[in-house]
Each structure stands twice: as structure tokens, then as C-alpha cells.
């Protein structure tokens, strides 16, 4: 791929244990092009979040990046020093976490969760932050006058949308979404992803989308990588993954996915 926005190269990540180490990510490589939605699928514990964390360099001991590079916009993220890292985070890569419920600070008003970010990266005053906050909330269909509320006063779907608005605040080139909608209803989930899709079209950022719902993934992503036990076992366009799955594991995943839209696909493999 020419000039990928994100290029993960031979990434290996371990969790250091008391006696032995656990290799959570093994030699994973993939690229994400500007404006592209790249999906990472795989079952629980296969290392998806571990990769997502590494991209923002959020890991803490005992996680250990034991090999590989993460290139964003041509720079190796792993080589950034503390100051560069602070600048890099969120302004280049923003992130939506697994649970919408808990990724907003429960004791801070929504506006101050925008403000601390904007102040840090842009040096905004309170008034400026408030103005920007209003704009952003409008983008995700939340009335701007609610910015003085606390997170617990919003429903789960609204909270997730607020997080997305915060993600957009610095106009990052990449947004990492780690199972952003698992806790939500299908309808809400659809509304949110639809909104993200529109915003992506509008603003041109790329998305790294993590989920274990293959159907949703094919619907939303341009390209998809399938992970199994820390390894990236298959990678291709959504089309390919859906219609011509190569790896046995991918096939098995499809088999266990009952779709009611399409006529039932022939089931391969036996249910476990």
C-alpha cells in the first residue's frame, strides 16, 4: 500500500508473568490507508485490544512490546519521547473504548472533559472550549446545552456519542474503536456507526474498528483482519472475507454466525 496512515509492522506484545510470559500479540502486520475503515475481528482474548492500546502507547507494565514498529504518518510511534507522545496522543490517534459507560470521568462535567483536552493540546480558554464543545456535540446529535451535565445523566448511547465527539475534537487522522457498541442495542448501534461513517466521509479520518461481530464488520469495514490467538491469520477486503474466507478459523466464524437476512449459509464444521 502506498503511504499508509497506520502501518503496524511485525508487532509482538507480551504480558510478563510471574514465571512465564504470555505472548498476546505475535508478529502482527497490517496497514490502514487514509480514510479507510480497517476491521480487526477475533474472539475474546485474541489480542485485539492489546494492539489498539499499543497504537496509542497506552500499555503499562507488565505489558511489553517485544518487537515490531507502529508507524503513524511516517513516524515510529514507539520511538516518541514523553513530550512528543503527549502531543501525538489524541491529536493524531483518538480512541473509543470497549465500554461506553465507563470511559467518561464520572465526576467531571462533559464540558470540562472537552476542556482539559483542548487546553492541553490547543491552549484553549474555557470559553473557546465551550464553543468547540457545542460544535462537536452538534455533530453527534446531542444538544449543546447539555454540556454542563455529568456523564451519569446520559444514556449509554449518548455517552458513546459524546466519546466520539471528544475523539473528533482535535481532528485526528485515525480513530481506534475498540468494540464501541457491544453494550448497546442494535438500533442505537446502527445509529452510531452510521453517524461515524458519515463523519468519516466528511472529515476523512481512518478508523481501526474492533469487534467480534463479523456481520457488522463486513457491513462497515473496507478491509478486515482476522485474529486468532495473537496472530493475524487472515487479512483482506470485506468482500473477500465474506465471500471467500481462506482460513479455517474464518470459515468457522461464519458458520457460527446465524444471519437471518440472507438465506441460511451452509453450515460448515460442527458446532462446538
Amino acid at each position, binding site marked *: 500500500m502506498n503511504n499508509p496512515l497506520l502501518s503496524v509492522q511485525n508487532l509482538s506484545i507480551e504480558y510478563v508473568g510471574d514465571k512465564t510470559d504470555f505472548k498476546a500479540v505475535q508478529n502482527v502486520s497490517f496497514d490502514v490507508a487514509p480514510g479507510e475503515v480497517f476491521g480487526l475481528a477475533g*474472539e*475474546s482474548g485474541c489480542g485485539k485490544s492489546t494492539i489498539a492500546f499499543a497504537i496509542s502507547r497506552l500499555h503499562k507494565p507488565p505489558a511489553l512490546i517485544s518487537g515490531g514498529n507502529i508507524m503513524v504518518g511516517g513516524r515510529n510511534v514507539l520511538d516518541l519521547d514523553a513530550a512528543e507522545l503527549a502531543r501525538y496522543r489524541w491529536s493524531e490517534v483518538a480512541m473509543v473504548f470497549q465500554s461506553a459507560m465507563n470511559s467518561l470521568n464520572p465526576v467531571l462535567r462533559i464540558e470540562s472533559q472537552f476542556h482539559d483536552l483542548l487546553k492541553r493540546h490547543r491552549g484553549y480558554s474555557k470559553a473557546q472550549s465551550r464553543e468547540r464543545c457545542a460544535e462537536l456535540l452538534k455533530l453527534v*446529535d446531542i444538544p449543546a446545552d447539555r454540556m454542563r451535565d455529568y456523564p451519569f445523566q446520559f444514556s*449509554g448511547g449518548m455517552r458513546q456519542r459524546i466519546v466520539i465527539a471528544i475523539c473528533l475534537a482535535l481532528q485526528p487522522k485515525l480513530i481506534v474503536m475498540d468494540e464501541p457498541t457491544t453494550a*448497546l*442495542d*442494535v*438500533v*442505537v*448501534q*446502527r*445509529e452510531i*456507526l*452510521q453517524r461515524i*461513517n458519515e463523519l468519516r466521509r466528511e472529515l476523512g479520518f481512518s478508523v481501526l474498528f474492533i469487534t*467480534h*461481530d*463479523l*456481520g*457488522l464488520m*463486513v*457491513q*462497515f469495514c473496507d478491509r478486515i483482519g482476522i485474529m486468532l490467538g495473537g496472530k493475524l491469520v487472515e487479512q483482506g477486503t*470485506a468482500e473477500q472475507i*465474506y465471500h471467500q474466507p481462506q482460513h479455517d478459523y474464518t470459515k*468457522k*466464524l461464519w*458458520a*457460527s*454466525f*446465524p*444471519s*437471518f*437476512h*440472507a438465506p441460511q449459509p451452509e453450515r460448515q464444521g460442527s*458446532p*462446538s
Partner: protein
Amino acid sequence: MTTQPAIISLKNIGKTFHLGAHQIRGAHDISFDLHAGRTLALVGESGSGKTTCARIIMREYIADSGELLFNGSAITDNSPKGLKQYRKNVQMIFQDPFASLNPAHTVDYHLRRPLSLYQGHLKGQAVTDKIHDLLTQVELDPEIVAPKHPHDLSGGQRQRINIARTLAVGAKAIIADEPTSMLDVSVRQGVLELLNRMKRDLGLALLYITHDVATAHYVAEDIMVMYGGQILEWGDVKAVLSNPQHDYTRMLLAAVPDPDIRFDDPRSRLEPNAVNRVREQAKLLHPHIRSAGPNHFYRHIDG
């Protein structure tokens, strides 16, 4: 519908929660039957009242209005003994396999307790044999699994233990409240298969509660779509899903991920305004019931 007698029937059940000044409609005018050898799926989004229905059936909540019938007769005995007698027949499988088994006890203990409570005639070796049977029935290796603690087991295995536990009681009806939503995609199928088999082989009546329309389609004979405490549409699974009548049902189905229609495709699009409108409307009470086929009913939106 079917000719077999209903094991459990709900007749015009209503339940309102009072939270200080305001009220929440938990269930309104709910009626349905659970039949032996059949699965009834109850779908709906979060907060629509599914669990409330389950709890009313489990007699954890007392309904404000309406009747709960067991084997065709209204329940009158509210003593602990009567409750126990009832629960011998009606059991529940919970959503979170990690929380529904006591981490302090072994699998063996989890199955031994219902046996000693409900199959008191079994003694000594007979109990152990029965536990083996049960575990084999849910496709687990008794030798390996019985002595283990829950945290040594995977989510799918735990859910199987839960199923075995209801079998140990000897229940005729099982309420499964989102039994697979916490499981990995790859093992969900297995658990559902197992439930299906139990239904077939043992003639159980199953209430399958889920927000995942796709799996409901896969396991159930009948389906009910719930919103705001009301059942908006119900009937044969195929009929309802292929020919939804209520706007809300339509919207719900449209929102189910479909690999064949990408987001960029205008067909997939849900208009936010439309969504809100449907939601607002579905919240209202709809007393008029219409039929759209021999086994397909819905609440008609007036005006």
C-alpha cells in the same frame, strides 16, 4: 397454535414500578403461553421489559394485574413450600455465566444441591451417577469437569453447567435470559444447539430472551417483539421476521447487521428522525390487536 397444553400461561399481566414520583411501565397487558417442546423467543432492546417478564414467571415479582397460570390453573399457594413446588418445574438460566455459578463451589456441588433438594430419593453413589449423567447430557466430560471450580471453565462450559442444573431440578419449563450474549460467537451456537436438543428430547418449554433477532430466528418456533413493556408483535418466527407489521419491528430488523448491505448503501440507512418517531410511537399504549396470518399478530398503531 399447538394442541399441547401450555405449561405456563400469562394472562394480561401488568407491572408498574414506582420510583419516587415517576413510574416505569415494566409490563403491560402481557399474554403468552409456554408449551412443552417449543421455544418462544422474546426480543426487544434494553429496558423493554424482557427481564421483568422472566421475573414474573419466576415469581420474583408479583404482577399488579393479570394472572399467571401453571399447567392451566392459577397459582394460589404463595407459601415457601408452594414456591418450591413451582420452581421444581420452572427454572432459569442467567445471562452472565461468570456470575451465575458460585466461585466458591465445585461443579459437583452445584449439581449435588438441586439433586438433594428435589431428588431426595437419590442416595450415595446414585447421586454421583446422576451428576455424571447430567454432565454427559450437556456434552461435558464428567471426570474432568465435576471437580473443577467455575473459574477453571470457559463461558460456554459454564452455561452448560447452568443448563445441567436446571435439568437436575427436573424443570419442565426453562427461562433463559440472554443465555449467550456474554459468550463468544464461536461457542454461542453450541449452547443454543444444546438448548434446542433439550427442548426436543426432554420436551421442555423454553422462553428464550434475547436482543439478538438473528439467534431468535435460529432457535425459536415463536417470537414476540417487545418494547416499552408491551409486546408489539408476535407469532410464528418465520411469519413475523419475513413479514413484519409493526413499524418498530421493521426498524429492529433493519438494524440487525447484514453483511450483504454495506453502510454506504442507502438501503441500509436508518433515518435518525424516523427512528425517533418510531420509538416515540412504540412507547404509547396500543390496545388494538390485528392479525396478519394464522399465527401472526401485532398491535395496531391508531391514527
